[in-house]
């Protein structure tokens, strides 16, 4: 496998396909409203990916008591 590069910018059509894969058939107007929000969250997820997290456990752990 080649080295992963930066993800291409999310387009409305890509979002349409991604939404369909999740079972949502969104209208053009709905995609227009959703696209900037999804772009913003994807940018934030890219930020999270860059945070060094070796040996850091999630706070969402299963507690027996």
């Amino acid at each position, binding site marked *: 496998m080649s080295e992963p590069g930066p993800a291409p910018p999310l387009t409305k059509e890509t979002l349409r396909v*991604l*939404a369909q894969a*999740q*079972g*949502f058939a969104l209208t053009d107007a*709905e995609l227009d*409203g*959703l696209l900037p*929000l*999804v772009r913003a*969250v*994807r940018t*934030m*997820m890219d*930020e*999270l*990916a860059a*945070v060094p*997290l070796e040996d*850091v*456990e*999630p*706070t*969402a752990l299963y*507690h027996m008591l």
Partner: protein
Amino acid sequence: MTDLVWKSMGELARLVATKAVTPVEVVQAHLDRIGALDGTIKSYITVMGDSARAAARAAEARVNARETLGPLHGVPIGLKDLYCTKGVKTTGGSRILGNWMPTEDATVVTRLADAGGIMLGKLNMHEFAYGPEGLNAHYGTPWNPWDRNTHRICGGSSSGSGAAVAAGLCAGALGSDTGGSIRIPSSLCGLTGLKPTYGRVSRAGALPLAWSLDHVGPMCRSAADCALMLGAMAGYDPRDPSTSVLPVPDYAAALTGQVTGLRIGLLGRFFLESAGAPQRQATEQAVKTLEGLGASVREITLEQMKHAAAASAAVISAESYAYHEPWLRTRATEYGPDVRERLLVGAFVSGSEYLKGQRVRRLIRDEVDRVLGDVDVLIAPTLPIAAVPVGAREVDIDGKPQPVRPSLVRYTRPFNVSGHPVASVPCGFTVDGLPIGMQVIGRTFDEATVLRLADAYQRVTDWHTRRPPLGV
């Protein structure tokens, strides 16, 4: 009777216990005021007039029978409309739950009633708690009582709670806080609001937004009233496995008025330095006031704050989507468009990303814990801005346009991520007469120190006693 609606919760309880007033008089004064003002303010979705009057009569009978009374006996309380109330509509501010009647009360509702509180009604909110502006397309957006001429936001999501307490339409209210939803409306409406430590107060019977970020807490006109409400609500609940078994201190007794020797960390970078001038100056002046009372201050920087927005986004997106997914598939058109869009974003956050958010949370929490080993509390502005007009998408902060929504949550959501207790405390007004609040952040489960500092500050200032210009 107008004066009754401006009494503190503590004072009302004392007046009732000494028979200076009756619970019926107190409740009726509030119901009359709701009738006179709430057509415009729109703080209530459901007014529980009949049951409130019946509860008031029963409360009066208990006083006359010289029974032992709870700390909130006869005190009218409003409930954000995501708290289940048995036999009373609980809408979540939505059409989807527009006619839903729970069959049992939320734990906190039961505990407040056991303490003698009288539930006046269900308060308006941003739909399903997913918005810091406090808008509501279904029930109307509450009107911030501090501006009679311009329809300004109350802040959200506990917008109705903010408006109602500020306007004297209840003595105190329940809010909830996932990214700032108690503190934002508290700051914008001139109230004292407390987001306790995660796990201090049961979430059982509260409609969730994000299970691991949701906090239950009071919104009042003073820290002393917050202490009373918290004391009634806090404590382990087997219905909510996230609640702590730690004992509940006597929060009211902790309000000694003393802050001599208390060490304050003032949060500069990320917080104070990016606030608007009025908010920055009000917070700095508040800190000087606290120094005058014997506290010491040093500047503190939290390096991990830069990751708080992303961590919060990962967690809230995934958890809110998980809860709403069935309705998003079958009843999507019944949501307001802004909330529907925000919920759908969660479909595009992976499980791995959700867990990254939960791992970054640990970094943030650990840093705040570490810093609170060197100081006793942290202080920051609650918001960089004051209340903007409804519909405004941008706001000027020191000459630069900034988007409203991210500005509203910037300083608050890091402490949902970390879980530490935070009070928003009134500390000034803008030249336009709009309230300004500051956050007081404490160690986990040290709500007593947070409230002690807030109360001490309120003993020497009067920001929290001012009333909005409603003309009545």
